C-alpha cells in the first residue's frame, strides 16, 4: 500500500470525474444553453441615475412580475453591477416580450369619460371594499372620499384576464379614447372609459405617502412648475372640475402600464403645485405603492434600454454548431501536436484534458440545471481558450523534466524534482490568469462575464488537475523499467550514465578528444 501513496490523488480524481459524469447522466443534467445558442430575447437595462441596491432589487421584482404575466417559462433576470440583464429563452412572441421588459411604462393622466360597469358574475373574488378600488378625492383641503366604485359591476368589453395579459400599445391608445382596467393582485376590479392622455408622469416632480391630520393615509404628488407641469395639470383639472364634455365624470385617472391605478375626483378648479393630496381608503402599503408609481413610473427608477437582442433559433443553432466543430478541430490539432512532440507524455496531456473535460461538463451541466447559469457562445470560447491553458501546464512540466534529464539527472528522480519547480511556476502563472478572469467577471457585463467565468473555472481546475492527475500519471510512467529503457517513447532524452554526469567537465573533454 505504501508504494501507492503517491498515486492516491490520481485514483481519487479519476473516481470523482467518473462519478460526476455518471451523476450528470443519471440526474439528466444538461448544460443550459444561452439564448445566443438557442434563440430568445435578451435585454440589458441601465438605470439613468445612481441608485442603491434596494431600488434595483425592487425593479427586478417588478420586471419579473411583468414577464411572468405573459407566461414565459424561466426568464433569467440577473443583476450585473447596476445593470439588469433579462434573458428570456425560446419565447414565441418575442416582440411583445421585448416591449414589456424593454420599455419603462409611462405614467399617464387621462380624463375619465365613464365608469364602465363591471359584470357581477365575472368579477367574483373582490366583492368587499378593497383599498385600491379607490375612493378618492383630489383636493387641497384633504376632503373626504366622495365616490365609491363598486367593484362588482362589469367587465365592460375587457377580457377577464386583462390584468395578467395587459394591453397592447394600440389598445391603450394614448392619443384617443380607450377602455382600461383597474387591477388588484392580477384581478380585474374596475373598468374605465378614458379620454386621450392629457399629461404624463414627467410633469411630476415627486410624490410621497403621508398620514393626514385626520390619521388617514394620503398620497401627495408635487408637480413641476410651468406649462408642462402644474399648468398642464390645472388645465385638465379645470375641465374635470367643471365636468365639461372632455371629462364628464369629474374624475382623472392615473394610468400606468395600461392599468388604472386610481381615478380620483377633482375637487377644485386649480391647484398649487405642492398642495395636492389624493385621499381615500388607503392603507400604508397601498399609499406607498401609489406614491412610488407616481414618482418613478412603472419601475422605482428610470431605465434606459442599452441593448436588446432577438436571436432567432436557427442562427443560434448555427453558432452552437460552429463553436462545437471549431472546438473539436482545435483540440484535435493540439492533440496531434502534443503527441508528435512529447509522445507518451503528450498522450498523458490529452488524457488530463479528457478528465478535465468530464469534470467541466459535469459542472456546467450542474450549474445549468440547478443555478440557471447558461452556457453562451462566449463561454464556449472561454473553454476552448482554456484548452491552451491546460496544455501549457503540461509543457512547462515536460520541458523542465527534459532539461533535468539532459543535465544528467536520472529520469525517475527528475520526475519528482522537476514537478516541484514546475508546479510552482504553474501555480504562479495560473493564479495570474485567475486574477484576470476574476476581475473580468467582477467588473464587466453581458457576454464578457460568461467568457470570464468559464475561463476562470477551467484555470482553477487546471491547478487541481496538474497536481492530482499530471503528477501521478507521469510518475507512474517513469516507474516503468521498459519506458525508462526506451525514453524516446516518453519523448525524453536518454539518461546520461552516472559516471559521466558526475563530472560534466570530463564529459566535455571526452567530446573534445573524440
Amino acid at each position, binding site marked *: 500500500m505504501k508504494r501507492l501513496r503517491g498515486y492516491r490523488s490520481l485514483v481519487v480524481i479519476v473516481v470523482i470525474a467518473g462519478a460526476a459524469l455518471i451523476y450528470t447522466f443519471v440526474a439528466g443534467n444538461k448544460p443550459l444553453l444561452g439564448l445566443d445558442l438557442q434563440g430568445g430575447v435578451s435585454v440589458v437595462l441601465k438605470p439613468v441615475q445612481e441608485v442603491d441596491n434596494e431600488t434595483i432589487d425592487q425593479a427586478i421584482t417588478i420586471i419579473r412580475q411583468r414577464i411572468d404575466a405573459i407566461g414565459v417559462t424561466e426568464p433569467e433576470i440577473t443583476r450585473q453591477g447596476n445593470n439588469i440583464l433579462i434573458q428570456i429563452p425560446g419565447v414565441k412572441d418575442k416582440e411583445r416580450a421585448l416591449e414589456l421588459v424593454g420599455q419603462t411604462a409611462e405614467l399617464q393622466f387621462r380624463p375619465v369619460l365613464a365608469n364602465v360597469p363591471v359584470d357581477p358574475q365575472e368579477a367574483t373574488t373582490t366583492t368587499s371594499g378593497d383599498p385600491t378600488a379607490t375612493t378618492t378625492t383630489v383636493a387641497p383641503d384633504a376632503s373626504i372620499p366622495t365616490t365609491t366604485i363598486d367593484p362588482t359591476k362589469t367587465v365592460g368589453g375587457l377580457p377577464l384576464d386583462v390584468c395578467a395579459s395587459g394591453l397592447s400599445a394600440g389598445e391603450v391608445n394614448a392619443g384617443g379614447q380607450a377602455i382600461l382596467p383597474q387591477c388588484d393582485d392580477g384581478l380585474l376590479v374596475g373598468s374605465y372609459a378614458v379620454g386621450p392622455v392629457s399629461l404624463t408622469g414627467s410633469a411630476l416632480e415627486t410624490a410621497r405617502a403621508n398620514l393626514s391630520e385626520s390619521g388617514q393615509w394620503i398620497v401627495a404628488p408635487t408637480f413641476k412648475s410651468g406649462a408642462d407641469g402644474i399648468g398642464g395639470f390645472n388645465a385638465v383639472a379645470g375641465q374635470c372640475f367643471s365636468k365639461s364634455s372632455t371629462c364628464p365624470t369629474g374624475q382623472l385617472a392615473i394610468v400606468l402600464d395600461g392599468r388604472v391605478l386610481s381615478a380620483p375626483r377633482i375637487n377644485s378648479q386649480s391647484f398649487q403645485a405642492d398642495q395636492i393630496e389624493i385621499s381615500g381608503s388607503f392603507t400604508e402599503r397601498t399609499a406607498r405603492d401609489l406614491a412610488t408609481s407616481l414618482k418613478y413610473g412603472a419601475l422605482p427608477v428610470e431605465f434606459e434600454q*442599452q441593448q436588446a437582442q432577438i436571436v432567432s433559433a436557427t*442562427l443560434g443553432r448555427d453558432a452552437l454548431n460552429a463553436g462545437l466543430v471549431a472546438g473539436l478541430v482545435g483540440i484535435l*490539432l493540439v492533440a496531434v501536436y502534443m503527441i508528435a512532440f512529447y509522445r507518451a507524455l503528450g498522450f498523458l496531456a490529452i488524457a488530463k484534458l479528457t478528465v478535465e473535460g468530464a469534470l467541466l461538463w459535469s459542472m456546467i451541466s450542474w450549474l445549468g440545471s440547478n443555478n440557471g447559469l447558461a452556457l453562451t457562445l*462566449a463561454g464556449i470560447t472561454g473553454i476552448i481558450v482554456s484548452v491552451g491553458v491546460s496544455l501549457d501546464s503540461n509543457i512547462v512540466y515536460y520541458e523542465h523534466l527534459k532539461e533535468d534529464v539532459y543535465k544528467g539527472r536520472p529520469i525517475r528522480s527528475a520526475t519528482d524534482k*522537476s514537478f516541484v519547480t514546475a508546479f510552482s511556476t504553474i501555480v504562479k502563472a495560473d493564479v*495570474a490568469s485567475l486574477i484576470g478572469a476574476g476581475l473580468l467577471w467582477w467588473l464587466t457585463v*453581458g457576454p*464578457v462575464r460568461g467568457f470570464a467565468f468559464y*475561463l476562470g473555472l477551467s484555470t482553477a481546475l487546471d491547478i487541481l488537475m496538474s497536481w492530482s492527475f499530471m503528477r501521478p500519471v507521469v510518475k507512474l510512467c517513469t516507474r516503468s523499467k521498459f519506458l525508462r529503457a526506451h525514453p524516446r517513447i516518453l519523448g525524453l*532524452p536518454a539518461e546520461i550514465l552516472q559516471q559521466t554526469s558526475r563530472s560534466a567537465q570530463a564529459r566535455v573533454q571526452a567530446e573534445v578528444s573524440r
Partner: protein
Amino acid sequence: MNRMSRINRGQTNIDFLKWWKRGLAISAVLVIASIVSLTTRGLNLGIDFEGGVSWEVRAPGVSVEEARSELESVGEGEAKIQIVGSDILRVQGPESTPEHTVEVRQALADLAGTDVSDVSVSTVGASWGSDVTASAIRALIFFAIAILIYLSIRLEWRMAVAAVFAVVHDVLISVGVYSIFQFEVSPGTVVAFLTILGYSIYDTVVVDDKIKENEGLVGQSGRMTYGQMTSLSMNQVLLRSINTTVSSLLPVLSLLIVGAFIMGAVTLKEFAVALTVGMLAGAYSSVFVAAPVLVALKERESKYRAIRERLQSQGVDVTRSTERVDRMGAGSPAISAASAASSTASATASATDSAEKSTQVASPSVVIPPRPRKNQRKR
C-alpha cells in the same frame, strides 16, 4: 547538432542581448504606428458603440443589391448591408422605433423566404459600447494593480513592473492592429483583449521563474551580467515559450478559421481575431519587452552594476551574451555558427572553443546551477 534539436534541448545560443535591441526597434515602430493610426484613422467602431439596430437572417442566394432594393420600400435603403459568413445577411441601421424594427424584420423574412422568427434583431443604445469599454478600461487598471501586487509578492517588484509594461505594450499593439486594418470593434473584441492580459502574463511568469532560478549565477560567481544571465535563461526556456504559444494558438486559430470563416459564426470571429492578435503580441512581448525591461531595471541595482563594471574592466564584452557550454556539444557564439560547427565538427575547432570558454566560465556546473532543493522530500 541541427538547430531544431538544439531548441529541443534548450541549448540554443541566441544572443538575446543583440535581439532585444532589434526587438526594441520593432516594438517602437509598432507602438508608434499604432498610436499614429489610432489618432489619425481611429477605430472602426461597430454598431454597439454608435447605437442602432442590426438585423440578421440566413438568406442563401440573396445579394446585397437585391436586399437594398427590397429594403428601400421600408426606408432602410441607406442601411449598411453586408453578407457575413457564408450566407448570413446583416443589415444595420440607425436607432428607430419598435414598429419600424418589426417592419424591417418582416421585410427581411419575406426576402429570405423564411419565417419572421428566423430573423435576429439586435437593438443597441449608444451608451452600451462605451459602457463595455469603460468597464474594460477599469478592469485593465485593476488588473495591472492586482498583477503588480501579486507578482511583487511571488517574484519581485521589478519583474512585476516589467510584466505590466509588456501587458500595456500588448494592448497598445493589439488595438493598433485593429486601427490599422480597420477591423470592426465590438464589445466581444474588447473582452478578448482583456483575456489576452492573463495570457501575456502566463508566458512572462514562466520566463521570470527561470530567471529567478538562475539569479544565483550572477550573484555568486559574478561571471556574467544580469543581462547575459537573462539571455541564457531565455535560451533555456525557448522551447517552453514556443510550445505554450503553439498549444494556445492552435485552438484559437481553429476558432478563427473553422468556426468563423468556414462555418460563418460571426460572434466567434469577434473573439478569435482579437485573441490571435493578442496572443502573438503576448508571446512576443514576454521575450522582447518584459525581459529587457527587467534587465534595465535590474542593472540599475548597485550589486549588478558593480558586477557589470568589474566584468567590463576585465575586458569581457558585456554587450553580448556569454557563450554557453553544453555537456552535449561545443558551444559557439551564435546559432548559425553552431550549426556550421556541428556539421564540420573538427576536433581543433572544438578545442579552441573550449579553451576560449575556460577564460570566461569556470565550469559548466556554474552555468547550470543546481536546482534549489526543497526541504520536504516526497518519499
